[in-house]
């Protein structure tokens, strides 16, 4: 019984069956990669997990509880964090503030009228955010407006924000797209390290096979809205159908 159990999930957009009969089980404390051609339904599946979309059929259980019908913030409070395909950060806020918001969410829950003490007095949160920034090697940028960062930096910030919540399940949608090689490697290391230090389960969507094969313990290949195969990285690499439909000759 995995921490995340997706059963028979289907989703239609008008005439397009984006997901059909998807079954997926992610075991606790593993890194599970989902790969597949463009438009296969990977992001759609993720959207169904975090409450952005409601599947037409099927069930999604997280840690024995159904997530369907819950608002995104409730699902997040259950312990699922998500990084988006195009960076979603608080552009008008500084980098440090961006990092503090998830820390507050973790500490205070979905709503807390904390209107009188000043932010700088919340030492625990400031420290936690600074610590995370240092870990992401962004501490020197903490006073910058997040919108003014280059895109690779935005993406790293977003990953950091999700990690600082210490989620039980982290969903990453192409976390290293547009990231410089050096930072990609850093991110891989960071994820590995976090994986070691904390009880965390990671589901990752990625087209960069270097990342996938460095991290994943299991891989599901999605094609045209249904899982094609699920296996270990080694087996996937050699899978002829996957090679043909997805990896191409350069893999």
């Amino acid at each position, binding site marked *: 019984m995995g921490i995340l159990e997706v059963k028979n999930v289907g989703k239609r957009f008008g005439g397009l069956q984006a997901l059909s009969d998807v079954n997926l089980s992610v075991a606790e404390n593993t890194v599970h990669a989902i790969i597949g051609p*463009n*438009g296969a339904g990977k992001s759609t599946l993720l959207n169904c997990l975090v409450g952005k979309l409601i599947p037409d059929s099927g069930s999604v259980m997280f840690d024995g509880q159904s997530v369907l019908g819950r608002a995104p913030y409730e699902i997040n409070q259950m312990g699922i964090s998500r990084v988006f395909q195009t960076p979603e950060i608080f552009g008008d806020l500084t980098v440090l503030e961006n990092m503090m918001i998830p820390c507050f969410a973790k500490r205070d829950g979905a709503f807390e009228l904390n209107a009188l003490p000043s932010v700088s007095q919340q030492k625990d949160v400031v420290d936690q955010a600074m610590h995370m920034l240092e870990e992401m090697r962004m501490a020197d940028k903490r006073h910058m407006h997040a919108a*003014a*960062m280059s*895109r690779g930096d935005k993406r790293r910030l977003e990953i950091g924000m999700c990690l600082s919540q210490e989620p039980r399940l982290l969903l990453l949608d192409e976390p290293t*797209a547009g990231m410089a090689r050096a930072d*990609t490697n850093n991110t891989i290391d960071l994820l590995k390290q976090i994986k070691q230090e904390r009880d965390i389960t990671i589901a990752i969507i990625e*087209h960069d096979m270097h990342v996938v094969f460095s991290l994943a313990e299991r891989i599901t290949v999605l094609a045209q809205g249904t899982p094609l195969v699920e296996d270990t990285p080694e087996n996937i690499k050699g899978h002829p159908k996957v090679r043909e439909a997805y990896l*191409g000759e*350069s893999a």
Partner: protein
Amino acid sequence: MNVKPDFSKNANQATTAPAFLSVWDMHAYYGESYIVQGVNFNVHEGEILALLGRNGAGKTSTLRSIARTGSPMVTHGEIWLDHKPLHKMTSYEAAQAGLGLVPEDRRIIPGLTVEENLQLAQIAPPIGWSIERLYDLFPRLGERRKQEGVTLSGGEQQMLAIARALARDIKVLLLDEPYEGLAPVIVDEIEKTLIHIKEQGMTTIIVEQNAVRALELADRAVILDTGTIVFDGSAAEVLGNAELRSEYLAI
């Protein structure tokens, strides 16, 4: 290097073949932050130039400066395209002069269908590939022509962005991370397309984090670091220079 080259028509005394696109001593600012700090380079007709560098090095800013988007603001420098002074033009004039930019965040226009996004590219002259021909190149787009562009999957959006550039009869194609988010097989496809259009005489500048891939494709490479050029030479040279690769590209 800082001698102003003579780009006027009768300047045949240049030592190498005349440059098709020249950027001379370009400086650009975002508000008060100084980002592009005196960039010089030439691209010859039919050449593919790889523009490389870390996150935040200023690659996107350089491309946007050439495309005359107005942000960042170019305060000094000259840009010549086929004897036409781009630095005196606004973005739409530059586009009519034959410049095509595929922006990094794809910039699919909300509220418009896939087909409308393409039609939009064919309103102002010069008009390039027919829409049907583009659908042949990217069948996925043809299947989704009535879908709203922004609901496409990440990879599909990238295809649309490239198709939109080809829908215009451009002379210089500026690609900002075109492979991002694309499945490996599709990347292979696009690479083939780029080689194909290069054979037909297209001049291309490509910004790409996957440096090896870009260098294998490119004739020449320019490496940027904090807004200045630190290397300008042939692509093979970069591949052969381990120091350069590890210092600026982490490969």
